[in-house]
């Protein structure tokens, strides 16, 4: 188990390192260097001398790898630069918006499980019936439906036609718990749809696979009822591989948050990233890319560790 954990940690750090290089290169690909980008937004800087001065101050005249090392050092020490749009420190911006997005993440995971688990179990138990076919079609639809289209349909139905839910906007929990709840209901549902579809499909095939195993026959041969076999012997081995689906689905949840926060005007990290892209706000883009990768990698690391804990074949070596 120790070796397993060490392996996963090492892997995560290697990929993080590569991500930082990739982001660094991507940032240099943006049209103009950061100072010029800043100048485009902030006209006061449009003086060539000042620009040259700034270039030297930011080390942009040095060789690329030196720039990379300086940049990485600054980033790790929490100096993520200053937003070219608002002039705020990117680090502060990030952590101010983080709770909003986390709340949205939690909501979407909740929806994914609430819908995906029962559907998957049901279709496995009613395999090859019309119900199974319906669930499978629903699951593929859930995986395929574009976030923005689903969002528009829901807004049209629940806000425009029925006036039940707000079309956009965010209410902090401290201000009004109920308002907070209703303002996140639709966005989190939309973000959770993809995961729900994935869960349903994986749970179905995982459960079917397990139910066909020899050890399920052994359990039946002991005289256990069908229900006891399902709960006591099939559930655990069937659910362990499903943990990995969380890692698979997470990328979609994160990507979904960018569009959803934009559509529903939610002041979270996704919205911050989209705005930064519009403005070419290059420090914010960089931070967004890196922290997104950190987020995805951390969740995947967690998934691997949980998987290792649940599966005795990995836990006890």
């Amino acid at each position, binding site marked *: 188990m120790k070796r397993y954990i060490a392996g996963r940690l090492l892997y995560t750090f290697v990929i993080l390192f590569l991500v930082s290089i990739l982001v660094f290169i991507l940032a240099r690909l943006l049209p103009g260097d950061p100072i010029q980008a800043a100048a485009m937004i902030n006209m006061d800087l449009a003086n060539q001398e000042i620009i040259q001065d700034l270039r030297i101050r930011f080390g942009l005249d040095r060789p690329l790898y030196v720039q990379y090392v300086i940049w990485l050092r600054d980033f790790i020490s929490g100096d993520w630069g200053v937003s070219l749009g608002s002039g705020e420190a990117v680090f502060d911006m990030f952590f101010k918006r983080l709770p909003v997005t986390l709340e949205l993440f939690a909501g979407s995971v909740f929806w994914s499980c609430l819908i995906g688990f029962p559907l998957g179990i049901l279709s496995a138990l009613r395999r090859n019936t019309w119900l199974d076919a319906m669930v499978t079609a629903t699951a593929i639809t859930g995986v395929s439906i574009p976030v923005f289209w689903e969002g528009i349909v829901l807004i049209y139905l629940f806000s425009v036609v029925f006036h039940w839910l707000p079309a956009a906007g965010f209410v902090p929990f401290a201000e009004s718990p109920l308002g907070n709840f209703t303002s996140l209901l639709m966005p989190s549902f939309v973000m959770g749809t993809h995961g729900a579809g994935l869960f349903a499909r994986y749970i179905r095939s995982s459960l079917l696979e397990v139910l066909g*195993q020899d050890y399920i*026959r052994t359990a039946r041969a*002991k*005289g*256990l*009822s069908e229900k*006891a076999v399902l709960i006591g012997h099939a559930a*655990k081995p069937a659910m362990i591989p499903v943990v990995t689906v969380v890692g698979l689905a997470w990328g979609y949840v994160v990507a979904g948050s960018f569009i959803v926060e934009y559509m529903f005007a939610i002041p979270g990290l996704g919205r911050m990233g989209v705005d930064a892209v519009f403005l070419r706000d290059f420090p914010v883009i960089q931070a967004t890319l890196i922290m997104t990768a950190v987020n995805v990698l951390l969740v995947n690391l967690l998934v691997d560790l949980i998987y290792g804990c649940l599966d005795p*074949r990995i836990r006890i070596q």
Partner: protein
Amino acid sequence: MKPESTEKLLEVRNLCTHFHTRAGLIRAVEDVSFELAQGETLGIVGESGCGKSVSALSLMRLIPNPPGRIMKGEIWFEGRDLLKLSEGEMGRVRGNRMAMIFQEPMTSLNPVLTIGRQVAEPLEIHQAARPDKAQILCGELLERVRIPGGRKRVKDYPHQFSGGMRQRAMIAMALACTPRLLIADEPTTALDVTIQAQLLELMKNLTRDCGTSLILITHNLGIVARYADRVNVMYAGRIVEKARARDLYSRPRHPYTVGLMASVPRLDQDVKCKLRPIQGQPPDLLQLPGGCAFQPRCGRPIEICRIQSPLLTVASENHEVACWNPADYPKEIGGEHALTS
């Protein structure tokens, strides 16, 4: 129609189990009848795919449905017809009065549950043992099946056990409630020869101690000769020969049985005499030939074999055979088994 004799533990009458697959109907077990007395050991032999496992699973009513179904027949066990029991009543028979050990020790234990939990479970279900008490009993059971340090291994997981140890754990699980009937479906096929012998010996001793009857399914005629009192030979879903083990060995009547004997090395046999595998392919249950199923591979077919399937008939005392032209003794059998060439 309840059988009168009380010493009979099990009586199977006209059992038919079919599989309705996309490719067609498979009559995996067709019109099988046999009986078993208290404490007796019955061997079932036959080629792969002849329906041995399906017969055993039918007794336990564990045929996967769909695609399989027990079409007709009666299974009288301890005075009740198992096929008439409700699912709940059947649950109280399985693992309690009648237990089964499977062919594949590597996959028959749940990889994510401890050995203790799995072995003790029958006690918890059928004898309402409390979990902590069951774990202690389970340790004793593991010792009884000679798992080294049994008590300490209750908390282990299957992957920490070797194949032989897993099969021992399976035996412990099956015998936990001292069932009246133990069905062992090729319990040792996947294991190496020394462990095979140890396990069979262990099973024999344990069942004898408890007075448990045993159905021993195997490919291996040597095992049958050694451990079984009586033998059913199966071919293509039917029993083709039924006899006491000794009689079957000394005087096989069905050409198929004769062929089986000829393909096994025997100690009392001349070294020069070559082993002869049975010719031809095992039958395809989807397309059985008309008449006797064995006729295409038979060394001594006669006219009627192609037309009509033979029924089991008494050939001598305690010896039944389903063949139109069975081998005769003693004149045809010499030093060589001449029937299959």
